[in-house]
Every structure is written in C-alpha cells, then in structure tokens.
C-alpha cells in the first residue's frame, strides 16, 4: 500500500474515466456534457504520465502534451458550434438534439 506502483495510477485513471463516462451518459445539458469529456481526457493524461514515469520513457509525456493541445482546440470549436445551435434553438438541451432520427 505504501509503495505506489504503476497499478495505483492506472486504477486511479480508470476510476476517473468511469466518472467521466457517468457524466457523459447522464448529462443532458450540452455544456455540462463537455465538462465530462474534459474529465475523460484528463484521466487518460494521468495514465500516460504514469506509464512514462515508471518505464522511463518520454513517449507518454509527449502524448499527454498533444492530448492537451487537441483538447484545447476541441473546446474552442465545440463552444463555437454550441453558440450557433443556441442561436437557432434557444436552448442547449440534449433531448431536443434529435434531427438525426432514424
């Protein structure tokens, strides 16, 4: 217990990922859904960093770096789209987002 190994970090990462999944499945407000997506990305980052540390490999950190970059751009574009949708429909409830039915 005292000795923190790779498995501890991986379990932590998994728990955070599960929390992120709960959020993704549960949230009906699109903005809050994005928050949950951020959680998912962060949990993966932890896993990458942990593996990189325990195997002495920098690849993990590089990957985490690029994940952060991508997450940032995703947020920008996502919010932009959300604004366009809001102008059309005046609400951002997920249940109304069903024009792709069938």
């Amino acid at each position, binding site marked *: 217990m005292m000795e923190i190994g790779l498995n501890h970090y991986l379990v932590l990462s998994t728990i955070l990922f599960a929390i992120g*999944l709960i959020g*993704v*499945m549960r949230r*009906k407000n699109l903005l809050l859904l994005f928050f949950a997506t951020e959680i998912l990305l962060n949990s993966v980052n932890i896993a990458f960093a942990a593996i990189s540390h325990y195997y002495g490999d920098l690849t993990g950190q590089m990957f985490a770096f690029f994940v952060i970059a991508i997450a940032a751009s995703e947020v920008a574009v996502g919010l932009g789209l959300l604004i366009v949708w809001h102008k059309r429909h005046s609400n951002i409830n997920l*249940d109304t*987002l*069903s024009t792709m*039915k069938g």
Partner: protein
Amino acid sequence: MEKYLYIALFAPLVGSMFAALFGARPKTLIAGLVPSILLFVSLVASSILLVHILGGGEVVHVEMMTWMATGDLYIPFGFVVDQVSVTMMMVVTLVSTVVHFYAIGYMDHDKGFNRFFAWLSAFVFSMMILVMSDNFAGLFIGWEGVGLCSWGLIGFWYHKESATWAANEAFIMNRIADLGMLIGIFLVYWNTGTLQYAEAFAAMPALDSETLTWIGIFLFVGAMGKSAQFPLHTWLADAMEGPTPVSALIHAATMVTAGVYLVVRSNELYALIPHIGLFIASLGAFVAIFAASMALVNRDIKRVIAYSTLSQLGYMFAAAGLGAYWVALFHLMAHAFFKALLFLGAGNVMHAMHDELDPFKMGGLGKTMKGTMILMTLASVALAGIFPLAGFFSKDLILEVAFIDHHFIIYGVLLLTAGLTAFYSFRIIALIFHGEDRHTALGHHPHEAYTFMLWVMAPLAVLAVIAGALKGTYFEMVTAVLPATEYHVHSAAAYWTMTIGTQLFVLVAIYLAYKKYMSKDIKIPDGTSAMENSFGYKILKNQYYIPYFYEEYLVRPYRELSTILWKQVDMKVVDATVDGIAGIIHTTGVKTRDMQSGNLSTMLKWMVAGTIGMLSLAVVFGLAVRYSGEIKTILSGLGV
C-alpha cells in the same frame, strides 16, 4: 363389350355434371330430365352386359388407367363386370332410374330441384364405381363417394337443423366405420402385397388364421357402418330427414347394401374364417329382431320403413355369415325392389298429406289414393314373404339356410322377426289406407300423386311380384363365382311343415295387425293412454335409449374434451407459442428502435455499452491466448 362398361359407369357422372351446371338457378325441367334419361341409358348398358354374362360370355375386365404405381404398390383404376357385379349393377341402375323419374314429380315444387339431381346422379356414379371396381382401393373410393353424396342428400334441406344434424351423424358414423375398413385394406395389402381382388383372394389361403380373422373383422367393421349394423345403426333412422326419393334409393336399395356387397365379394376370405362368419350371422339376426321391435311402436311412417330396412339387412348378413352368399345377394336384389317401392309409396302419401308423418293422423286414404294403396300393399306382401311374391323366395330361403346348418337360435330369431315384420308393415298399411278417416278433421285434403309417378313405380311392383321366378336363372349365373351350395331340407315333411308353418305365422300376424288398426275406435294417441306409458312401449319408442346413451356418454364427453383441447391446449399453448415468438421479435424491434432515436444521450450510452462489449472480448481472448495450453487439454478430454 368394354364400351358398355364405360357407358354404364360414366353416364350417371355426365348426368350429374349436367345438372350441376344449373345448380344455382331455379328449377328447370331439363336439369331433371337429362340425368334421368342418362341413367336409363346406363340401365340399358347394364342390361346388355347382363345378357352377355347370362349367355355365358366371359367376364369383362378393363383397366382404365394407372392410379398409383409406386414401389411395390400398384393400384389401377380397374373395373370388372362379373356375375356378382352385374347383378348389383342391374339393381342399382334399375332402382336409380325409377327414383330419378319419380323425383321429377316429387321434387316438383322444391327450390333445389337442380341441385338434387346433381347429387343423386353423383351418388349413382359412386355406387357404380363401388360395385364395378376390381380392387379394394376402387371400392374404397366408391365407398367414400356414396358416403359423401349421402351426406349431401340427407342434408339436402340444409336450412333445417335436424336435417344437417342427421347428415353429419350419418357421415361421421360412416367415417368411424371407414377407419376399420381402411385398417382392413391395409392389412390385406400388407399380407398379400396387392389390392386386386383376384390376386388378394388367391393369396389368402396361405395366410395364418389369426391374420385372416383380423382382416375379416376390420372389413366387417366397415360394412357395419355402411349397412348400419348395431352399434352403428342410429344414423339410418335419422337419415329419413332427407327427401323420400333419397331414402328410397340410398337407404333401401343401394348404399346400405354396400356392406353386404363387400361381404359377398370377399366370400373367399370369409369362407376361410367361419367363426367370424358365425359372429356376422349372429349379429345380423340380432339386428333383425332389434330393428323389428323398434318398428312396432313408431309413429313415423318413414322411420318404420327404415327400421324395416335395417331388419332386412340383418337377414342379409345372417345369410352371408352362414356362408350362403348367393342367398344373401338374392335377398338384396329382391329387397331393393319392394323396399324402394314401399318408400316411394310413402312419399306419395307424405306429399298428399303435406309431409305429415304420423299414421295415426291419416286413415281411410284408400278411397282417394287407390294406386298408391295397391302398390304399397303389394310391396308389404312381398316384404312379409307371402308366396308367390319375391320375399317368399328370398326370405324363407334364409330361414331354411339357418335351419339346415343347425343354427336353431338364429332360425328362431329370424322366424320371430318375420312375424314382427308382417305385423308392423301391415300396421302402417292399415293405419294409413283403411279404417276411419282421421285426416279430414285435421284439415288435410289429399289427392293422388301424378299419374306418371305411379307408372314409374310400376316396374318395381312387377319385379317385386315376379322376382321369385328369376331365382333359377340367377342361381345358374352367380354360382360361377360364388359357392354353389344348394339348400335342401332332409325330409320332405320337415320342409313342408316349415314352409307352411311360416306362412301361417305370417298370415296370423297380418290378420292381427288389420284387426287392431282397422277398428273404428282408433284415436290419435296423445301420451295419456296406459299403453303409451308402459315400460315396454317407452323403451321401444326411445330406440332402447341408445341414441340418448350415445349423446350422453360418447358425444358429450368428446365435445368437452375437444373444447378443452381447443381452449387450453390449442389457444393457450400452441397459439401462445407462435404469438410469443412473434411478440418477442416485435418487442425486440420496438426496443432496439431506440438505438436510432437520434437522441445523443442514448447514443452515448450505447457507445459505452459497445465499448464494454469489446473490452470483454479483449479479456476473453487474452485469457484464451494466455491459457491456450490448458484449454486444449480440457477440450481433448471432452472428446472434441
């Protein structure tokens, strides 16, 4: 000669199809005339064949076409005209022609005139197939055909519920017996490898007695249904719901004699199993007296005549059972003539009295219906067996057969029945035609039937009178195929005592009947007299409560069982299973439709579910790879 065979066989069919063309239209005379004429043509062809056979010509045997040739089974549509079948053909065509012409007059005002002739000619066609076929399969086709046409004709007035019920009863009872017959036919094929009469009967002596016994029993079960022997007899009395020409043709002369024909045709089989023959004879004797007793008190003239038919069928089976096949066939022939005549006369009476059936409500009709009275009296005299009419030569011969073979119980029973027969026949005659006029008070104004109908009945009357003279010629002809046992009583004294004693017994019975039923104070019984409430009367009136027994203990439980099987098994189990499968598929469809609802949240959930699925697969395959060695040993242990 073959062409006469085909003409005789197919002329009724052509007539039936012709009349069927007019089936839905109102009555047209031609729809009745053409079948009747075609039937007359068939009669002529049969007569030519008869002359041919009588003159010593060889038997006409044709094979029209192959029906089944599969593996070892070979069944052709084959027809044979030998001495036995030509006798039957003559009887059938003669009575049918008479009945057809009669029916033109009888069904004069009926809406279903055309349909009637279609059914009637179809019936004759089926009967011809039955008697002319040369193998058991063709016999069975004809058997079923007459059953079907009988159903259609008994239930001819299908608006009447009693008629449809009677038709169904007849058909179903026949069907039950047909099962037995089918088993018999299967046994014949199984043991002899063929269904042709000639080959099958030739192979039979080689079979063991038990097999032959079973074949004989099962074939006789079929005959029991068709010829209404006990216990499958209730349909015959109820079949009187049909029009009277139907009763005359089917239930006097032709269909009910099919059973006798079967036994006669299979005489080579029954000769090998005399114990079954004795059983048949005993059953026949029992039926004879059983039916005669029920006819004593019945108040429906057609039913009385129907019971009389049943009784005479018992006589025929008694003769056939005792090995006197030619005697049975001769009685069949004679009986057909006078019984048909009796029915047709009853038809005249019914028409005159507007379908009234109770003889107690008639009386004194002899004044207005002389012709019918003469004809019916002649028929009854023939039925009673008075010398020199036909009945004497055939019925008394059967009594002699029983006596000579030392079956004294059968002899006694048949003798008693002869007396009863005379009594109830003349009871009816007396009640209808003689005595006081009871019908005018009830508002009936009877008149005689159309003259041409009387003329049409005349040939039957003539034959009823002279048929006895044909016995010698008949014997010469038919013993070419049937065993030619001559029946002579040993001593002349015994013979004359027997004959004269029988005649006296019958005459006394007739006298008693006349005395009782011609007296001036016959009242219409209304249920209050002591006689009517006596035990014996009640039993006889209710047909020994046998129909009641069948209804309570056979029909009702069967119906309950059917309802249970329908409601509980069929609807709840079978239908539920099928509907359940469909329901499952439908519900699955409804539920999975949510996958495509366009709702992002749902799709996200499905995405996670899919991911889990793939993760599980990864775990499983990973474990399989890791432990592949151990898995292989386990599987080889199981034998894969």
